[in-house]
């Protein structure tokens, strides 16, 4: 079972910025234990572009699709046998990233 694991940051109360060494070590462990499928940090939401081509011509707009205090800062995809395993890893991930984590199964 694959889970999308989202790292959620908060614009008004951001997490600390010195997490990278710990996250790298955590990733090494995820790989070694067979949970790791994919991971990536995202650039700031101001770098996003939204394209809407449902009408006659495509419309590009600058910025993320939704303006909010909380935003997606990065993602993992994990392979885990069940939610309990994913939640246990996510509990660690939240501490390591110093941010909230959302766990959501793929369909």
């Amino acid at each position: 079972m694959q889970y999308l694991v989202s790292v959620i940051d908060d614009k008004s109360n951001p997490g600390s910025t010195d997490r990278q060494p710990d996250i790298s070590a955590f990733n090494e462990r995820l790989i070694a234990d067979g949970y790791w499928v994919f991971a990536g940090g995202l650039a700031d939401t101001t770098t996003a572009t939204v394209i809407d081509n449902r009408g006659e011509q495509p419309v590009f707009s600058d910025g993320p699709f939704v303006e909010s205090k909380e935003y997606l800062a990065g993602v993992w995809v994990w392979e885990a046998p069940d939610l309990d395993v994913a939640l246990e890893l996510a509990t660690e991930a939240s501490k390591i990233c110093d941010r909230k984590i959302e766990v959501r199964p793929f369909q």
Partner: protein
Amino acid sequence: MSEVREAITRAHHDEWARVVAALTRRFGDLGIAEDSAAEAFATAVERWPADGVPPNPGAWLTTTANHKAIDRIRRENKRDDKHKEARMVHDDDPPEPLGAIDDDRLRLIFTCCHPALAMETRAALTLRMVGGLTVPEIARAFLVTESAMGRRITRAKDKIKAARIPYRVPSADDLPARVSGVLAVLFLVFNEGYLATGPDTDPVRHDLTAEAIRLTRLIRALLPDDGEVTGLLALMLLTDARRNARVSAGGELVALDEQDRGSWDAALIAEGHRLVRARLAAAAAGIAPGRYQILAAINAVHTSARDMRDTDWSQILALYDQLVRIDPSPIIALNRAVAVAELDGPEVALATVDRLEPTLSGYHAYHATRADLLRRLGRSQQSRTAYDKAIDLAGNTAETAYLTRRRDQLR
């Protein structure tokens, strides 16, 4: 005929959770398990009056429900998918070496009370899957519409399946934390029954308190060595024992000091005391008691007194002091102040209660406690104001009636 009906009712009571649990284990799908169990009971209602009650109703129901589930899967023509799902959700690990707790019903309870589900959802799902209450019954208990409750339960079942919440008893490491979640659900159900919050419901919902007690007994049978499970059962029994004395014929809440202690249920009190004594022995052996055990002990002191004046308040205060150390919540501090009032007088207690204002000003019991202390101090005007606030915030009809009478007696 009525014997058959009785047998069906008893079978529903005793076997519902077992049938749902066995089917969930086999088919890995709470929805299929629930629907097939319901169909099996409907078939029993049809067949038992003509064929007679089978010698082993539980086995008959499980077999029938199994056939229904297989028919259903065939009918839906998704056999492969369902079987794949069944394998996915099915726990292939060997059973945890935890002896008696390797039980399908226990897996079912832990699945329904999984921390990834909202607390109110856990309570609803437990009442449906483990308790066998119908969706309309649960909707009434939580004062929501049937369709809203139906959606809530369906969403929970979908989440269990889609997110793959495992159908298993947590590992030994996680067990204490997960049991406490289960107990919180059962206590929530019990309290909703004991002090029902709706203006249109009975002030005491015996169906809910009885169900909470029955499920706690079940947990205790499955986890006999967990002190908090025993503590919660004792607490519920000692609380429920006072049920008949607690609401007057006129529908008004009767406070502890005015209750007819002769109408307390002696058998429940005896059982509760026995459980508390067992936990006291464990505490003497050095096992620190948790909050349910301490609350049960407090209720044991109350139910030991023949009269309010006989109550051993210093014992009660000592227990509250112990409770405050493990649960420093303002509500515990408020209840502790009631014992302080009996020992050191209302003035000392009022000073403590007033300090809780910032956190408890929206809680009816805070204002009711203050109102009573102010009344005892002869500060009628302030007492009246406090009763008004308590009446505004109280949701239980019997309690509102009691508070109103108390307020109107002030001069």
